[in-house]
C-alpha cells in the first residue's frame, strides 16, 4: 500500500574464483501504489535476486530501493514493513495452519477474535478451511503453498512479495484462485510484486510484467503491450502459449505497401506476404525475423491467404490448434471453438497485418508491429 | 551477507594448520624414524638432525638383521606377501559373494531379508576375541588352522558386511526405472545386473573394496591366533622386532612405511571412482 521504486538496482555476486557474476543489471522500475507487478523469466534470470533485494535478504550492490519515497537499502528485513510468501513455503511446523496464518497478527497483539475472523476469511478465499486445524507437514504441497500465501496476504504491509505463489496449485483450482487473489489484491490496493517462470500466470495476475533475462530488464509493460508490441525477439518468443511462430524473412519494397518473402530453414523462399499499408523505415531487402501470434492467424480462404497442408490438429475443448506446413516451414494457428481439419489436407491461412511483428535479424530488436500500422 | 574479514580468514588458516599438524605428526615421525638407527631414535632429547640411513629398509628386504645381540632372521618380505595374498583374496571373495547379495537385498523384498542383512552387519559388532577362541578350536579340528583358506574365511567377517552394506546403499540409489527399461529392451535380469547395476554402482564398489581392503590389511588379532610364522601378515610379523635384546624401533618404522604404502597407493588410485557421482542422466524425481 505504497509506491515502490527500484532505481538502477544491481546485484553482483563475487565468485570464489573467476569473474564476479552480475545477477541483476541496473534495473529501473517505478511501481505505483496498488499496482500488481509480475517478475517473469526463466531460472537464473535475476528475478528472485531482485525480489530478495526488495525484501532485504540480499544487499544491493549499487542503486537504491524506495518504498513510499523512503530509501530502505540499509534497513533490516524486519524494519521494511514488507510481507513475503516464500517459494519453499517456510511454514512453522509446530504451529497449526491457523496459527501460521495469524502469526504476524498475534505477534502484534491484535485481539484473538479479530485474528480468527481474518484468518477464516482468507482461508475461505484460498480454499484451505479444512486444513486450518492441521499441522503443515500433514497437508498437501498445494495446501502448504496456499497457507504460505495466506500468511503473507493477511498482513498490513507496504509491499507484498510473492515468490512463485501458485506453482503447486491443483489444476482444477488454479483459474478460480488466481481470479480471487487478483480481486483481493485490487480491492485492498495492495502493492504486489510476484515472481514466476510461468508466463500464463504472469499475464493472468499482473497489471504490468517485468520480463527479465540474464539480469537485464527486457521490457516492463502491461500484458497487452507485451503481446501486441514486444520490445525484442526474446520477449516475443517468451510470451504466449503456443509460442509465436517465427520465421526468417526478407523485406520486399519493390511494390507499394509491405511485402515479405518468408524463407525456410535452407534460406529458400517458402511463401510471400503482401500488405497494403503505409510503412516507414523498412529497407528493401532487409533481413528480418518475422513473428506471427498463432491466434491472430485465421483459417480461411480470402484473398491473400497462403496455402498449406495440415500437419497436426488438436482440439482442446474451447480452442483448436492446427499445425500447418507452408512451403517447408511450420506454423501454428489457434482458432476458437472446434475447427475440423484432416491431417494432410490442404488448408489456407490468412495473415492479417495485425498478426505481423518484425525484428532485426542481428540484435532482435523490434522494428515493426502490425497492430500499430493497422490501427 | 556473509563477508569474510581478514582476521577471520587468518584464524581459519591457523586452526586448520594446527589440526593438520596434530594428525600428520605421527606419520611424519614414523617416516623419520624409518631412516634412523635405533641409537638415533632412542637419543634423549630427540633430535631432528641425524644422518639418514637405509639400513632398516635393507634389513627388511634382505631378511637379515644384524644387531649387537647377533643376527636376527626376519621374514618381512614373506609377511608382506602373506598380507597381499590374504587381503586380496578376502576382498575378492567378498566381492564375489557380497555384490550379488547386496543387489538382492537392495532390489528384492523377501521374508527376513532385513534380518539377514542385519545379522551379517552384526558380525562387525562382536569383539573378535570372543569369536576367536571357539573358532580356533574348530579350525584345529577341521585342519584349517594356519592355512590361507582358513584365514580368508575368517577375514570374511571383516570384509563381507562392509561390502554388503556399502554396495547395497549404492544399488538402492540407482533408479529402478533404469533397470526396468533395460529389462523391457529385452534383457534378462542377470544381464541387467551385470550391464546396468554393476557399472552404475562402480563408485560404491570401489569405495567398499578400498575400505574392506584396508580393514583386512590392518587386521591383527585373527592372524595372530590362527596363523603361524609362515602364514602371518605384516601386522603380526612386526611383533618379531620386539626381541629379547630390545625393540627394533627403526625396523618397525620402516615396516610400517612399507606396509602402509600399498593401501595408500590404492586409495589414491581409487579416489577418482569415489568422487564420481551417481545417477547421471536421470531426473530427480
Amino acid at each position, binding site marked *: 500500500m505504497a509506491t515502490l521504486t527500484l532505481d538502477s538496482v544491481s546485484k553482483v555476486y563475487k565468485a570464489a574464483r573467476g569473474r564476479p557474476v552480475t545477477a541483476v543489471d541496473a534495473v529501473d522500475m517505478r511501481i505505483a501504489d496498488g499496482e500488481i507487478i509480475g517478475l517473469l523469466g526463466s531460472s537464473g534470470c535475476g528475478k528472485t535476486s531482485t525480489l530478495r533485494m526488495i525484501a532485504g535478504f540480499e544487499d544491493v550492490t549499487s542503486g537504491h530501493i524506495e518504498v513510499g519515497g523512503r530509501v530502505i537499502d540499509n534497513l533490516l528485513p524486519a524494519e521494511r514493513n514488507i510481507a513475503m510468501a516464500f517459494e519453499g513455503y517456510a511454514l512453522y511446523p509446530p504451529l497449526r495452519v491457523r496459527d501460521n496464518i495469524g502469526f504476524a497478527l498475534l505477534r502484534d497483539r491484535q485481539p484473538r477474535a479479530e485474528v480468527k475472523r481474518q484468518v477464516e476469511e482468507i482461508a475461505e478465499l484460498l480454499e484451505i478451511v479444512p486444513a486450518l486445524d492441521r499441522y503443515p507437514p500433514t497437508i498437501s504441497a498445494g495446501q502448504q503453498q496456499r497457507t504460505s500465501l495466506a500468511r503473507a496476504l493477511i498482513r498490513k504491509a507496504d509491499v507484498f512479495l510473492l515468490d512463485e505463489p501458485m506453482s503447486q496449485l491443483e*489444476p*482444477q483450482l*488454479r*483459474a*478460480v484462485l*488466481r*481470479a*480471487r487473489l*487478483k*480481486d483481493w489484491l*485490487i*480491492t485492498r490496493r495492495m502493492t504486489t510484486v510476484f515472481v514466476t517462470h*510461468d*508466463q500464463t500466470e504472469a*499475464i*493472468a495476475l499482473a*497489471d504490468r510484467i517485468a520480463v527479465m533475462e540474464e539480469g537485464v530488464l527486457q521490457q516492463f509493460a502491461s500484458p497487452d503491450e507485451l*503481446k501486441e508490441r514486444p520490445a525484442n525477439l526474446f520477449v516475443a518468443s517468451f510470451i*504466449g*502459449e*503456443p*509460442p509465436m511462430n517465427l520465421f526468417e524473412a526478407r523485406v520486399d519494397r519493390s511494390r507499394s505497401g509491405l511485402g515479405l518473402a518468408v524463407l525456410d530453414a535452407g534460406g529458400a523462399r517458402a511463401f510471400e506476404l503482401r500488405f497494403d499499408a503505409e510503412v516507414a523505415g523498412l529497407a528493401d531487402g532487409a533481413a528480418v525475423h518475422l513473428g506471427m501470434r*498463432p*491466434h491472430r492467424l485465421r483459417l480461411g480462404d480470402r484473398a491473400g491467404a497462403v496455402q498449406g497442408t495440415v*500437419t*497436426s490438429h*488438436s*482440439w*482442446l*475443448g*474451447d480452442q483448436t*490448434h492446427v*499445425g500447418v506446413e507452408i512451403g517447408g516451414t511450420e506454423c*501454428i494457428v*489457434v482458432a*476458437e*471453438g*472446434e475447427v475440423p481439419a484432416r491431417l494432410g489436407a490442404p488448408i489456407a491461412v490468412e495473415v492479417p497485418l495485425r498478426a505481423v511483428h518484425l525484428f532485426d535479424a542481428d540484435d532482435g530488436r523490434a522494428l515493426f508491429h502490425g497492430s500499430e500500422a493497422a490501427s | 551477507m556473509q563477508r569474510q574479514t581478514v582476521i577471520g580468514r587468518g584464524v581459519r588458516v591457523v586452526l586448520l594448520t594446527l589440526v593438520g599438524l596434530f594428525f600428520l605428526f605421527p606419520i611424519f615421525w614414523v617416516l623419520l624414524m624409518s631412516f634412523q638407527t635405533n641409537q638415533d631414535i632412542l637419543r634423549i632429547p630427540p633430535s631432528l638432525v641425524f644422518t639418514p640411513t637405509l639400513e632398516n629398509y635393507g634389513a627388511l628386504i634382505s631378511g637379515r638383521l644384524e644387531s649387537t645381540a647377533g643376527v636376527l632372521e626376519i621374514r618381512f618380505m614373506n609377511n608382506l606377501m602373506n598380507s597381499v595374498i590374504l587381503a586380496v583374496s578376502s576382498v575378492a571373495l567378498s566381492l564375489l559373494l557380497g555384490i550379488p547379495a547386496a543387489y538382492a537385498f537392495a532390489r528384492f523384498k523377501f521374508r527376513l531379508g532385513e534380518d539377514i542383512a542385519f545379522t551379517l552387519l552384526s558380525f562387525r559388532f562382536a569383539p573378535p576375541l570372543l569369536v576367536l577362541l571357539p573358532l580356533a578350536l574348530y579350525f584345529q579340528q577341521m585342519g584349517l588352522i594356519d592355512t590361507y583358506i582358513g584365514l580368508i574365511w575368517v577375514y570374511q567377517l571383516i570384509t563381507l558386511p562392509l561390502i554388503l552394506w556399502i554396495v547395497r546403499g549404492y544399488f538402492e540409489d540407482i*533408479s529402478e*526405472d*533404469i533397470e*526396468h*527399461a*533395460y*529389462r*523391457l*529392451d*529385452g*534383457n*534378462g535380469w542377470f*544381464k541387467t545386473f551385470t550391464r*546396468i547395476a554393476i*557399472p*552404475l554402482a562402480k563408485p560404491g564398489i570401489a569405495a567398499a573394496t578400498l575400505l574392506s581392503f584396508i580393514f583386512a590389511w590392518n587386521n591383527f588379532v585373527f592372524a595372530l591366533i590362527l596363523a603361524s610364522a609362515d602364514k602371518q601378515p605384516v601386522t603380526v610379523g612386526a611383533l618379531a622386532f620386539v626381541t629379547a635384546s630390545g625393540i627394533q624401533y627403526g625396523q618397525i618404522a620402516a615396516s610400517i612405511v612399507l606396509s602402509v604404502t600399498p593401501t595408500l597407493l590404492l586409495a589414491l588410485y581409487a579416489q577418482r571412482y569415489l568422487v564420481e557421482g551417481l*545417477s*547421471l542422466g*536421470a*531426473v*530427480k*524425481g
Partner: protein
Amino acid sequence: MSYLSLGKLKKRFKNEVVLDGASLDVERGETVVVFGPSGCGKTVLLRLIAGINEPDSGTVHIAGQEVTYLAPEHRDVGMAFQNFALYPHLSAFDNIASPLSARGVARGEIERRVHEVAGLLKIDHVLHHLPKALSNGQKQRTSLGRALAGNPGVLLLDDPLRNVDAKLRYEMRLELPRVLKAFETTVIYVTQDYKEAMALGDRVAVLMGGGFRQVDRPASIYKDPDGTDVARLFGDPTVNLVPGTIEGGTVTALGARFPLAVSLADGPCQIAIRPESITVTLDEATSAGATPVDLGIGEDTHAVPVELDAVTPLNVRAVMLLRTADGRELLATCSEDEASRLPRGHGRGHAHIRAADLLLFDPAGRRVRPGERQ
C-alpha cells in the same frame, strides 16, 4: 479379442487399493491416453502391462496371448519413463540401440534403425553424447527413441512430457501423433494434463477410484462426461458446477428457468456449465451500442445478473470471475480482444447461458440422460 486387453486388474500396495478391477481393450495401432488425477494408479497400470509389477488378480493379454505373469523382456513392450531412465554410462546412440542389440540385430542394421529413429525425433546430432551432456528435451527424445527403436507391439509412455519445459511440451504435443503414426504401434499414454489427453488420444480412458470411469473419444468425454468428477478433469478453467432443480420439463438454476429438450423426472440435480459457453455482457457495454445479437447471444439464452469480480487473461482467452446474486462463483471465458475492454476492478452485468449448454447430473454426480434416471 483386442490387441491389448486388460481384464479386471486388481493391485494393492500394503493397505492401499490402487487398482480395483480395471478393464480396458485397446485395438491394434490405436493410441489410448490413460488420464486421471495424480495418485489414481496410472503408473501402476503401466507397470502391470510392462511386467514390472504383477497384479493381485486379473489378466493382461497382448496380441491374444496371456502375459500377466510373463517377464518384461518377453512381452514385446517398449516404455518411456517419466524420469527418462536413460543408461547414464551409455551414449545416446547406445541407449537407443539397446532394444536392438538385446535382440542380436546386426550392427549395420542397428546403425540404420537408430539413425532413422533419431532423425524422426531430430536428435541425430547428439547421438554420441552421454545422457548428462543432453538437454532435458534431448533426454526426453532419447528416451522416446529407445522405446520406439525396437518397434514394440505395445508402446507405454509414462507421462513423458512431465519433466520438460512448457515450450518443448507444446512442441512434442503436436509432433508426437505424427511420430507414433509412423510406427503404427499400439500406444498407452499416461498423463495428468488434459490438453495432452485431448491432443494425443484416439480415445481417452479416465482412470479414477481404481477403475476406468469413462473410455471414449476426447470430444465425447468433453461434451458428454459421465460424471461431475470426469467433467471437472477437463478444461482450463474447469467446468462450473451449480445446484438446480428439475420440475415439469424445466430446470431452475442460478435464478433462471431453462427449458429441457428431453423429459426428466423431477427432483434436485447438479448442473455443469463450461466456462466458454457463458457469454458475459456488462451493463455499460450493452448500453454503449452492442446488442446481444452482435455477441452471438440467441433467443434461447437466459440472462443471469452477475457481478464481475476479476479478469485474469490467459494466453488465447481471458477468464472472468463472476458472482451471482446468491453469492455463487461462476467462471466464464471470452476472447482476448473482448477482455481488453473489461474494467480492472469490479463491474455489473449479465451472464448469458444457453439451455443446450447445460450438462445435467444427479445429486451424487452421475450424468442424467433421458431414460436413465432411477
